[in-house]
């Protein structure tokens, strides 16, 4: 049972709804970077969009963009990942509640604040009555959402799925995470992020929607060949899981063209990748993306998008290759390896189809 990525779309701190970042990435210097917003009017009517915060507009737009006219009930599952949910509306309701001592509160901010608002808004726009769920587990939110779809494909419960990752960052939430060491001090530059000598990264935002199907056609970008997620694995467990994943696809490590990792510039985060490179990956080139897209809980959704895009274009450009200034031509298999605070670890195998 194969699973194919049919289409995938993003709005982020790179140019939205296109692959221009692939040739001409923007290198941000600020610690706090908000998404570049497209014109939403062509996707969302004003009576719907009046209630939507930015995160919802991005989610609906990338979803519509990726579905290319498919009707609601033709989609078997809509599964969404978000680390912080609709934090802008959460803050608005919270502030209002605290400032007005629980009086004269209005409902809109509350109802648009729950984490599942994103997934259900998409279903509402599409009028899709099928499976719908939302995963909120920090750095493994996207993998959890993808895994849910993956399992249902394996069990023949679904033939296609819309899987997305959506996260926003407000100024206040940025300030709070700054207090607990999430962000670098001072300006950002790629070399500082690459060297990871200090704690922290820089803040980006995520909106990725991907349409997956069990049927291959001329639109198919690549296949989701396998995946797994582990909680606090030992070194041996990690190795064993990777080996099994490769064996299931009749592959060995030498078939992997690149490992796409969540190297972010944060010393503690990146040490785990260095160690795993020594233990597991040896000479396989590392590829990274957070230097372009920033850090956010569901940022691995953009990693997924980057991996798929490289396979689509048959090249990994040199600005993505971590340990050498050379591009990688005609990649066939990209392994996405992500971890969150060395507690949750995931593998996603993408293969040319």
């Amino acid at each position, binding site marked *: 049972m194969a699973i194919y990525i049919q289409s995938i779309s993003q709005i982020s701190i790179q140019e939205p709804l296109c692959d221009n970042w692939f040739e001409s990435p923007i290198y941000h210097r600020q610690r706090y970077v908000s998404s570049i917003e497209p014109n939403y009017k062509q996707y969302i009517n004003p009576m719907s969009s009046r209630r939507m915060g930015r995160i919802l507009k991005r989610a609906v737009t990338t979803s519509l963009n990726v579905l290319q006219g498919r009707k609601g009930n033709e989609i078997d599952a809509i599964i969404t990942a978000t680390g912080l949910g609709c934090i802008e509306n959460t803050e608005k309701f919270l502030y209002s509640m605290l400032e007005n001592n629980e009086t004269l509160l209005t409902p809109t901010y509350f109802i648009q604040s729950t984490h599942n608002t994103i997934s259900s808004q998409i279903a509402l726009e599409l009028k899709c*009555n099928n499976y719908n769920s939302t995963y909120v587990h920090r750095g493994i939110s996207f993998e959890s959402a993808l895994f849910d779809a993956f399992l249902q494909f394996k069990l023949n419960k679904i033939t296609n799925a819309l899987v997305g990752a959506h996260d926003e960052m407000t100024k206040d939430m940025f300030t709070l995470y700054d207090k607990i060491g999430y962000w670098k001090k001072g300006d950002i530059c790629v070399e500082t992020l690459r060297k990871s000598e200090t704690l922290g990264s820089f803040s980006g935002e995520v909106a990725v929607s991907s349409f997956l199907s069990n049927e291959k056609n001329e639109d198919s970008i690549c296949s989701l060949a396998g995946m797994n997620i582990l909680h606090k694995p030992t070194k041996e467990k990690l190795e064993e899981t990777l080996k099994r994943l490769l064996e299931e696809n009749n592959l060995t490590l030498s078939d992997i063209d690149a490992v796409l990792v969540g190297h972010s510039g944060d010393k503690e985060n990146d040490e785990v990748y260095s160690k795993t490179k020594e233990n597991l990956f040896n000479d396989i080139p590392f590829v990274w993306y957070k230097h372009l897209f920033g850090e956010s809980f569901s940022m691995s959704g953009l990693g997924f998008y980057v991996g798929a895009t490289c396979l689509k274009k048959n090249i990994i450009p040199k600005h993505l290759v971590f340990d050498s200034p050379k591009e990688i031509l005609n990649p066939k298999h990209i392994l996405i390896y992500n971890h969150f605070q060395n507690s949750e670890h995931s593998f996603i195998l993408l293969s040319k189809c």
Partner: protein
Amino acid sequence: MNDILVTAMGILTGLGLGKDETLQSLINQNSAIGELKHLNTIHSSLPVSEVRLSDKDMLSLLNYNPQNPLTRTTLLGMLALREALEQAKIDKDTPKRIAFISGTTVGGMEKNEEFYLEFFQNNSKDEYISLHDCAASTQDIADYFGGFDFITTISTACSSAANAIILGANLIKAGYVDIAVVGGTECLSKFHLNGFNTLMILDKEACKPFDKNRQGLNLGEGAAYIVLEGMESAKERGVEPICKLSGYANTCDAFHQTASSPDGQGAFLSMKRALEDSGLSAEDIDYINAHGTGTDNNDSSEASAIKRVFGENPPYVSSTKSFTGHTTSAAGSVESVISILALKNNFIPANLNFKTPMEDVDLVPAQRTIQLPNIKHIMTNSFGFGGNDSSCIFSKII
């Protein structure tokens, strides 16, 4: 065989700590809905179902002195989970692949709202900053017990815990884990108490699900977890199954962010597809533990959907939110545990406070505890904001 067995359960709500206290309260028709005592809010006259344990009490019961602070959501979850893991004979050395999936929406908001302004004024409460999100409770609960191979958090409002059950079952069926510990936890917070208040769906008295004069819901807090296990694993470990999870479904109403469609399309599909998944027919279901919040909209919508699926002679229906209040993200597992207790002890829990039937849909719930020998199959519904609708069917093992 591909059966998904339930081999253990744990629960903590306003009805009490543990299955025994919960069962006694249900049979004796003792509701937990009463005065709001712990939460510091101007809306303290609103009836709620609070867990009658302070955070300090819970830490004491756990015999735990953590280095870092824990949220109330986490503590509720720990106590409920402890009961389940002890019954299942699972500890951190159990040589099986075990998943832990927890549903929550409030997460650490109850601490967040207390300290929020302080976060920006000084550093004294910084250790609470990372606890605000949904994952914090799942992570802290998992770290406390140890031994899990996969953990994650679901947030689909009032169907979160039901969806945790569904993911757990799928993980086992697909062969990724042997055991899935699934459910949800939620504590009361000013944030969602006020949120529901702005929607004008809170009853100023004890809720009356399915009653013509119902005025809304009462919020509750609590946690419940179920241990799901494949047959082989249960046999190898020598644990007796309680019942099996025979079917489930997740659908979306896709009508409105907070209101359910009048004909209950999402609810209808959820129940219908759960039946299809189980291979059972509508006539096989002996009891429906309804979502039954007591709101004008839900109860009409759900009742319509029940008639559409089950016809003019539906099975017994009751909403035990008249006992526990609406435990929101935990409701799916709280009510599954209650339903399974009913299944094993052969009774239908009462739908308290019902007096007058609705006029728009002809559905009269069970108004008192009813002894029903030979209950075989029970369905439980959880319908959340955003139209996230899920249904699970539990069956006796014959």
